[in-house]
């Protein structure tokens, strides 16, 4: 009786709201709340102790956190730029292919088809200082007679992870930029040739401005992706050696499940999300500007 008094739109939307509340709103609110408690998985009752901003203050004043934060930003910057440049190069090469372009495009997507966990294992093997392919190759070629400790030296370890990340995701850039190249009209390029541009100038003044929106879309997607990097790192180094490859989310994961300090981990996670949002906003701004520049109608 009572239900039937609700209007039809409310009634029809109710299931959707219910599902959203169950899977999004409640967990979100709960995690947000728990970031204001000293909640530990081992002490369930600690969920009901309200400690205000103490977790956040601890996070902000924690050197380890800021190191991980800074390292994540560094990792993000290096990985995104490398992927961007390699992806652009790859897309330009594939777009020049007269024959077999379709095949190349499919091949290009292969790295995206592997689970990051498997990529992690594969690169862990490749970079192994003892039996790894890379050291083996370097030694066979006579470039070095040492066993380079790829995953054991702190700096080399982050580099190795970056290589794995770049390998697995360069194709995201390549494919999006290739889409831009294929959609691009030929005439302005020909006009640029006639106007006196060298091939390099044509790229700089005509092709690149046209591709920028596509690059920024890829940047946005990938910045979110890289900022939550966890799997590859977890497999390859697990944040080691001596926390030298600790990124935001491996730190969050360790705090939450290793130390069981769920409240603290949630506080960190909210920080990490703010970082992601900032990157997204930044790239969307760039994207909007670039789109407006080329007068895009999409």
């Amino acid at each position: 009786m009572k239900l039937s008094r609700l209007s039809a739109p409310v009634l029809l939307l109710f299931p959707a709201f219910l599902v959203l509340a169950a899977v999004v709103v409640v967990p979100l609110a709960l995690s947000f709340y728990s970031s204001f408690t000293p909640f530990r998985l081992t002490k369930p009752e600690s969920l009901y102790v309200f400690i205000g901003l103490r977790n956040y203050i601890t996070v902000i004043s924690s050197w380890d956190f800021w190191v991980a934060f800074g390292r994540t930003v560094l990792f993000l910057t290096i990985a995104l730029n490398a992927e961007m440049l390699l992806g652009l190069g790859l897309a330009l090469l594939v777009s020049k292919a007269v024959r077999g372009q379709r095949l190349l495009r499919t091949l290009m997507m292969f790295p995206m088809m592997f689970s990051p966990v498997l990529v992690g294992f594969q690169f862990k093997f490749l970079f192994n200082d003892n039996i790894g392919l890379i050291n083996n190759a370097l030694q066979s070629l006579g470039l070095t007679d040492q066993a380079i400790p790829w995953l054991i030296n702190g700096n080399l370890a982050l580099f190795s992870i970056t290589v794995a990340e770049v390998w697995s995701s360069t194709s995201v850039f390549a494919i999006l930029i290739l889409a831009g190249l294929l959609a691009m009209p030929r005439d302005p390029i020909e006009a640029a040739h006639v106007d006196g541009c060298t091939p390099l100038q044509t790229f700089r003044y005509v092709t690149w401005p046209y591709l920028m929106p596509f690059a920024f879309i890829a940047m946005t997607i990938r910045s979110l992706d890289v900022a939550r990097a966890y799997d590859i790192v977890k497999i390859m180094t697990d944040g080691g050696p001596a926390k030298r490859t600790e990124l935001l989310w491996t730190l969050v994961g360790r705090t939450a499940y290793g130390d069981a300090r769920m409240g603290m981990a949630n506080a960190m996670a909210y920080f990490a999300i703010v970082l992601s949002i900032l990157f997204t906003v930044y790239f969307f701004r760039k994207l909007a500007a670039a789109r407006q520049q080329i007068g895009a109608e999409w």
Partner: protein
Amino acid sequence: MAPVSLKKLVKRYGALEVVHGIDLEVKDREFIALVGPSGCGKSTTLRMIAGLEDVSGGTIEIGDNVVNDLPPRARNISMVFQSYALYPHMTVGENMGFSLKIAGRPPEEIKEKVADAAAILDLTHLLERRPSQLSGGQRQRVAMGRAIVRRPDVFLFDEPLSNLDAKLRTQVRTEIKKLHARMQATMIYVTHDQVEAMTLSDRIVIMRDGHIEQVGTPEEVFNRPLTKFVAGFIGSPPMNMDDVTVADGKLVFASGATLPIPPKFRQSLTSGQKLTFGLRPDDFFPAGHGLNSGDAEAVAELELPVSITEPLGNETLVFVGFNGRDWVSRMLNPRPLPSGQSIKMSFDLSQAHLFDLTTGKSLVA
């Protein structure tokens, strides 16, 4: 300012040859139009001159230089594209000044030259806009502005009016003609529209299947077409044409209708010869409603039925049944003609054309 010379120019795509060794001399400051149906090789020829297509054989000279292997930027040419091909991320002013910027000219000079070009093309108030904010006609004017700021030796136009509506087309056509008068530069203009070619150019090159059919002034190609193809292509409405056989000093049509042999051909025709007879709508008119060529003896008259009429105001196109189909006639000082009525039609045979049935060549060179 330079002449352009094509010698035995060939274009092949793999095994397919699309331009078959054409020769053409474009004089300095000449306006020449390449015209022909689509697929005749005119755009390909223009793109080879621009350097956007490789040359498969023969040579292209601009001025005194063979430019076959030079990239477009080294040829000192400008090109206006059918799709405008403006740079979407640059303002109108930047678009027009782009080539000067690339050439490393000082900003003041660029500004001055862009302002000059903009004044010529009435674009001054649009210099800060982007191409996406302009109409089609404005975009095409910007494309022309981009071409003229550089003062190139040769201007190339690739169907620049095809994307414009009919009214704008006439306007921009006039602007191009003015531009040629002002710039005093060599211009090569590709179009499939014979009206554009006729109105704009000093000489017309009519192309067909990768060959040049005829080169001549608009007056020459209209009045003295060398081939049946040119006769059919130039002129609107097109020339009336039908096959005839010479018999008993007459031209006999398939339906049995006959016309006297035009006076200028009387000595040269032999009985049994098979020909194509052609007569322009201007020379085939309701008696008393046409231009008089002055040679009254050469006018033949026949009673023919009117099938339909298309009044255009100052003239009417009259379609009359002759030899089993409709022949077009241009009626000056028109009066209403009901369909089905038989009227007396004049054939001004002094203006008639005869073409060899097999080769398609005109009988008077």
